[in-house]
């Protein structure tokens, strides 16, 4: 069945059953090419589309979704969503939104990017691989090298009159290299992503990956103990992503964050400001409306150390008696509505990277963290993670470090930030995007020798 007809029919039948209903329709295409030794190794192309249907009945929602739009699917969606709403016993009322008068005009779809021919992207991947191989004699092996692109569209419609849509397109790639020196082996990788094909600097990407691998070759553990730690910008971004859930009002209301009711309190060092900006250019995580169709806006979550707000959707805002911050998440058409940031980042400070190293004095620079999905407790904020990096002695970078763990607590870390760098960098955008400048932290526990 034709898509618009299907959606109209679905909403009409929903209304006939006496429920409010919304439809989230996502469709997109993606491309990825992996190269090896100058040849195409794997080439993946897809078109995908899916429809999520949500009904609201007596304050309860139920969802069902499908990737086929036929007559059977129509009835399955209706029956499934209505049954699921009937099963819900949640004490918190859900809401649907009629839409705003105006939405921000964001330029997230660059037709030039969508029009790049496959041959050109294959060529980019080959160039990235050969650039990586040309940087250093110790790098003779590429673990993986790829260029990818995607274009996605979303339409949100409901029985209350909401009808909004958006499109994004993104180009990216990555290279992961292996450096060897005798028995020593180390890997390094770098990813890029942009909405502007002219901004891609493949040589810089190759250099960064190779440098990561080569510089870490001589890595060895340091003695166990407490260290002053400089978290490089990318690692600080990983840390923020891991613990971003503590800023969700949904988690706070469920007792899964210690920030419940602490708006207005100092929860971080005065140099810390945390932003959520859904309008950031060049990010596929930007959007004019959130997962419930509410117009988005930029906000600070921490301002100069003080918690200004948690992130809300319609349900959590109503429960707390405030306005939604337009942070309703719906990472895919099939997902249940939750809460998530858009582009979430620590605002940059004034110090450049070398100044931060100098300010560290004696300590460690951390350039890699692993094991976030297991070694970090998103409720308590505790973490204990495998790490790599460099010794900092007398304010200068020293030898490479590996096979250590870094442990601490994120709530404490927020308070222990002594300086914030100027080198803000964002991670790969997906449903949400996280960014940070490098952060100097007073003290973390290190396990090594």
């Amino acid at each position, binding site marked *: 069945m034709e898509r618009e007809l299907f959606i109209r029919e679905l909403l009409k039948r929903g209304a006939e059953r006496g429920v409010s209903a919304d439809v989230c329709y996502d469709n997109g295409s993606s491309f990825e090419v992996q190269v090896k030794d100058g040849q195409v190794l794997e080439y993946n192309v897809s078109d995908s589309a899916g429809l999520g249907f949500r009904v609201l009945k007596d304050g309860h929602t139920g969802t069902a979704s499908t990737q086929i739009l036929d007559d059977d699917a129509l009835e399955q969606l209706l029956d499934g969503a209505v049954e699921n709403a009937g099963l*819900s016993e949640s004490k918190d009322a859900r809401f649907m939104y009629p839409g705003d008068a105006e939405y921000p005009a964001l330029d997230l779809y660059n037709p030039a990017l969508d029009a790049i021919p496959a041959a050109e992207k294959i060529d980019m991947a080959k160039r990235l691989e050969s650039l990586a191989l040309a940087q250093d004699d110790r790098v003779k092996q590429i673990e993986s090298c790829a260029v990818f692109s995607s274009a996605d569209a979303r339409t949100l419609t409901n029985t209350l009159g909401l009808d909004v849509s958006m499109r994004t397109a993104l180009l990216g790639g990555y290279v992961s290299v292996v450096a060897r020196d005798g028995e020593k082996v180390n890997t390094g990788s770098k990813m890029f992503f942009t909405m502007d094909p002219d901004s891609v600097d493949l040589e810089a990407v190759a250099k960064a990956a190779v440098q990561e691998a080569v510089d870490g070759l001589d890595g060895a553990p340091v003695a166990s103990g407490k260290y002053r730690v400089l978290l490089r910008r990318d690692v600080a971004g990983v840390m923020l992503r891991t613990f971003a859930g503590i800023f969700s009002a949904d988690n706070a209301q469920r007792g899964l964050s210690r920030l419940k009711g602490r708006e207005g309190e100092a929860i971080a060092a005065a140099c810390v400001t945390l932003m959520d900006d859904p309008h950031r250019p060049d990010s596929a995580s930007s959007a004019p409306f959130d997962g419930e169709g509410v117009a988005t806006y930029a906000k600070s979550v921490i301002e100069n150390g003080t918690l200004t707000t948690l992130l809300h959707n319609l349900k959590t805002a109503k429960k707390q008696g405030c306005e939604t911050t337009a942070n309703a998440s719906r990472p895919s058409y099939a997902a249940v509505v939750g809460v998530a940031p858009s582009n979430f980042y620590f605002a940059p400070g004034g110090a450049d990277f070398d100044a931060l190293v100098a300010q560290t004095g004696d300590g460690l620079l951390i350039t890699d963290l692993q094991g976030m999905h297991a070694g970090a407790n998103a409720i308590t904020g505790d973490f204990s993670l*495998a790490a790599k990096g460099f010794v900092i002695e007398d304010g200068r970078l020293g030898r490479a470090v590996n096979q250590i763990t870094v*442990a601490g607590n994120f709530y404490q870390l927020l308070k222990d930030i002594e300086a914030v760098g100027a080198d803000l960098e964002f991670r790969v955008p997906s449903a949400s995007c996280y960014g940070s400048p490098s952060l100097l932290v007073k003290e973390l526990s290190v396990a090594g020798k």
Partner: protein
Amino acid sequence: MLTKSTAEAVLREALRTGGDFAEIFWEDRKSGAMALLDGHVEAASTVRRHGAGIRVYNGLNSVYVHTNDTSLTGLIASARKAADAVQGDTPPFDLHLTRSICRNLHEVRQMPMDVAGSRKAQLLRACDLAAKGVSDEITQVRASLSCWDSEIQIANSEGLFTGDTRVYTRVYINAVASRGGDSQSGREAPGALMGYELFSGRVDVEAAARMAAQRAVTMLHADACPAGRMPVVIDGGFGGVIFHEACGHSLEAAAVAFGNSEFAGKLGERIASPLVTAVDDGTLPNEWGSLNIDDEGVPTTKLVLIEDGVLKNYMVDRLNGRRMGLPSTGSGRRQDYTLAPTSRMRNTYIAAGEDDEAEIIASCPDGLYARAMGGGSVNPVTGEFNFAVDEGYLIRDGKIDVPVRGASLIGRGSDILTRIDRVGRELRLAQGMCGASSGSVPVDVGQPMIRVTDITVGGR
């Protein structure tokens, strides 16, 4: 359904530009999830996924295209897209599909998607009550049920035309214990490749809920784990994640074929302590990581990876098998039709040894006892791994002493394998989801209790 004539037409189109092998993977999947938070059904959802992936090889190069449009026109259009990316010189060859029915090792009785929502809610409520009954310190329980049935069909240009229906049922219990401003959580998540009958005999959900709750309470009263190098006793069951992460991934052909593994080129060599025999078995009846056929249509096998410390086999899929000159071991897996398959683990475990569990602790120098492990990850190139200890205790004077929290274990796979000095008698398995380039797939990890002479333990 994918008909034979459609499959043949699609494969022919895919090979139009001289590819030497083509495959279509068709899938129709219905899944349902229900979550109970503090005794109330919080969310219920139903998802129908449907589509097909088409793959073409030209020598060692692979093209993959997937689509939701499984009409003849939709599939032919996708096959054309795949063919357009291939410039091969294989002349057209005879293509004739013969339907084959796979052996069924994994009987299913009750399709979980058909079970009434009210019955599922009742099961989750029982979990909630059992967990809360453990202690007044249990402040929150989240119990959820996830089930799906996936009907697949696979056809390839070698004439294979087969299919299977896979049915999965799993319950997740997460209990949070709190005191003052402090909280700790414990989780258990038993599941199987079977229907709703999972809960009539095979899995006692209330016992699992109590175990999760008890772990949260124990850890709430635990001090921070000391950091440093020490001997570590890792208990059976999910403790097998150490082998999965530290060694299993490095034995997948996807890593070995390109030399991206510390075990590449070491078949027949000693890579582990002679006490270690390790197996990857896709045939264990109804186990979470089992299958009748893999996602390339190859029957699954019981594969000995390491025998008495000597490397015997890698886990091989079709494409990496071509790269390595090895036959498939039935290890080609993918999350769903949207991803091309690659070599993956199934149920991977260290086999039972001969050491007495009580003696393993009693003879252990002061160190760490990891009763329950969390997840972890590994860099297959360097073998560097890390994983979290969910429930740990100090070992003092040959006895299990006070509980400790926040411990993590790091090291290199090749290093740890040679340092295993005890392997217990009782093999236990546990369920997990394993993520890699072909997505997230159900796997079992497992082992008896083992002891490692020293590991770097991260703590505070």
